């Protein structure tokens, strides 16, 4: 009797964690919609505060959309592990007897879906209010899909590292921001190229490469950080 009676496989345990995240997301639709509403707010508040000259607007539109996406996915990360830590369910995840990296990867993946997909879907709305031409939409949306993935996976490491001590998402932003700055720069540049009608393939490939790196390495770091921060 050295282990549990008959343990489940990692994929099916990860599927449970994924399912649980999605169910929770649906229960707390308000929280789920927060990043995307925030994104739309940021992108529509600008025309209000700036003098609305369409020519100027089109110039800064890609940057505004990408800054909005970065900020809103960053903000959604603060609660990623914090809520689980507070109610004790994070301990249960650690004690599941599964490789922790696999379980947290499922959790972060679910978070990406729940945060990233609404952002990508809302992008056309934001873009049109900033008079981005429709031709640039595919690049914008694809770029956001990849870019939010990088942000969420890299950000998860920061979220796990800042669990210990008092809650302070400032630390999180400070840790994560330098790491995801390239995403912002390449994403905005790719969109800008698409707006001017140039090819944006280079930027998108770069984002894809970053995403692959983040998805493979970040869960290991997250698992290590979670173990350290439970006390």
């Amino acid at each position, binding site marked *: 009797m050295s282990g549990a009676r008959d343990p489940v496989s990692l994929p099916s345990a990860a599927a449970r964690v994924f399912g649980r995240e999605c169910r929770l997301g649906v229960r707390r639709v308000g929280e789920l919609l927060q990043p995307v509403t925030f994104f739309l707010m940021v992108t529509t508040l600008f025309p*209000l505060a700036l003098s*609305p000259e369409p020519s100027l607007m089109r110039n800064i539109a890609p940057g505004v959309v990408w800054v909005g996406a970065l900020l809103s996915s960053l903000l959604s990360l603060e609660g990623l592990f914090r809520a689980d830590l507070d109610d004790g369910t994070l301990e249960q995840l650690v004690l599941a007897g599964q490789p922790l990296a696999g379980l947290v990867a499922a959790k972060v993946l679910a978070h990406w879906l729940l945060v990233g997909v609404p952002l990508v879907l809302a992008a056309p709305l934001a873009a049109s209010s900033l008079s981005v031409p429709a031709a640039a939409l595919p690049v914008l949306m694809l770029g956001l899909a990849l870019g939010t993935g990088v942000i969420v996976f890299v950000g998860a490491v920061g979220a796990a590292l800042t669990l210990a001590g008092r809650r302070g998402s400032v630390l999180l932003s400070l840790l994560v921001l330098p790491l995801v700055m390239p995403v912002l720069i390449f994403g905005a540049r790719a969109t800008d190229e698409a707006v001017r009608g140039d090819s944006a393939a280079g930027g998108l490939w770069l984002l894809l490469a970053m995403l692959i790196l983040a998805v493979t390495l970040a869960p290991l770091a997250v698992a290590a950080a979670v173990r350290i921060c439970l006390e």
Partner: protein
Amino acid sequence: MATWTWFHRLASPPHVYRISGAFLPWLALFTALFIGYGFYGGLVLAPPDYQQKDAFRIIYVHAPSAWLSMLAYVTVAVAAAVGLIWRMKVAHAVAASAAPIGASFTFLALLTGSLWGKPMWGTWWTWDARLTSELILLFLYLGYLALRGAFDDRARADQASAVLAIVGVVNIPIIHFSVVWWNSLHQGSTVMKLARPSMPGSMLWPLLSSLLGFTLLFAALLCVRLRAEIIDRERTASWLRPIVGAA
């Protein structure tokens, strides 16, 4: 004290349910009459404007729905305040029923306004004071409805949303006087200065009739929704049993 008990008896759910049922057919009838004359007079009889051609005819929907968007909000806020201060459940039911109607009229005003804006100003939307404050009104309605939805408990939903409705009422004068306080793209007040109307009678009378008609429409819709709301709230009460059983 006598007026007080009279007030409360007047506001009891069964009484309100009965009275609103009795008003409903009359409201429907006069709504049809006034809106009918307003639309016929405005869309068919009135001559095309010398500047705007036929585009101005959208005023017969736009002005009334914009007016109703504000009236409905004031209704919500006043009902909510009454409910909060005198703990009157029917008043909360009125607020809850009026809000979605008001949100719809707000949406209609924004829609018709921006349809009209395209030929008039060459753009669907600008961040002008009146337009922005009307959009804010829509957001306020949406926030009010979202706040209601966030509570499991109806009594608390009533009270919390009442606080919000009262706070939000500051926006109404802003909408109305926005054209006066800021130099706005939007039309100044035309209808309300009856002393020197800046509109020929053939355009004005249908507009006034459709204003009245929309107001009656609001009242009629309010009655319908209020009755449904009362049934939902009082579903366990004994006075409802014969009524619901019969239906």
